[in-house]
């Protein structure tokens, strides 16, 4: 029973994630692009839940949907466009872009399908917060400190760059 529910949930959220991603690329107005990005990122959070990554799903909602998309909406608000230009590149570039994307996708699918994955005996389904917290302060303490430094520098840099004078 739970298998059926998990399968249905996977397909629902996978399709809505892909639709959201396509909307980010295809929608014509920047504001609609941002709303489609919310759909894509929110569905990815649900996919994380299906992968039993509960902490990461919460982080995804808080950081991506809560912070990054809001930041983008502010940027859209602060850069009003007098004329709505066609937001896509000329046809040749579109063709080349789709060629690159499709070729890369084919390569990836080929590698995924033929890859000799050493699957674990059974999927890892256990609460993650305890181990993630322990890991952040033991094994990964150096990258953790580095990430805080990166965020601090990013914050100061953003303030300096966007300052009014």
């Amino acid at each position, binding site marked *: 029973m739970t298998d059926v529910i998990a399968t249905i949930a996977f397909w629902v959220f*996978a399709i809505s*994630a892909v639709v959201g991603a396509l909307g*980010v*690329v295809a929608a014509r107005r*920047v504001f609609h*692009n*941002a709303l489609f*990005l919310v759909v*894509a*990122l929110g569905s*990815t959070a649900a*996919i*994380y839940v299906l*992968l039993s*990554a509960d902490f*990461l799903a919460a*982080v*995804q909602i808080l950081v991506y949907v809560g*912070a*990054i998309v809001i*930041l*983008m909406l502010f*940027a*859209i608000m*602060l*850069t009003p*466009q007098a004329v709505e*230009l066609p*937001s*896509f*590149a000329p046809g040749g570039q*579109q063709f*080349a*872009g*789709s060629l*690159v*994307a499709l070729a890369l*996708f084919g390569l*990836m699918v080929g590698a*995924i399908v033929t890859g000799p*994955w050493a*699957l674990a005996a059974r*999927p*890892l*389904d*256990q609460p*993650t917060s305890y181990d*993630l917290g*322990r*890991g*952040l302060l033991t*094994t*990964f303490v150096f*990258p953790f400190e580095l*990430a805080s430094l*990166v965020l601090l*520098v990013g914050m100061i840099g*953003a303030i300096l*760059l*966007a300052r009014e004078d």
Partner: protein
Amino acid sequence: MPGLNQFLILGAVLFCVGIYGALTKRNVIVLLMCLELMLNGINVTLVGFNRFLAPPVGVSSSPFAGQMFALFIIAVAAAEAALGLAIVIAVYRVRHTVQVDEIDLLRG
């Protein structure tokens, strides 16, 4: 229950849609959104690997190394978005545009 391949292909689809957008869109803010999409696809792949290829307890010091990578990617993505949008606003103040093909001061 969907297996590893489905999650990997979902990650690949998100990544490739992001690449297509990053190569063809002209609005810098939408370019940044496409970058976030690509990072998102990578995160799905990493978390999928973490769940299905987890080493037995005792081999690795942390069973959630893959999720840890995803966490760091999210942290870097946040810094990247903040800096990128600050640059967009700074450029807009000078050039009054956010279309990449009009920001061509360095074109030879």
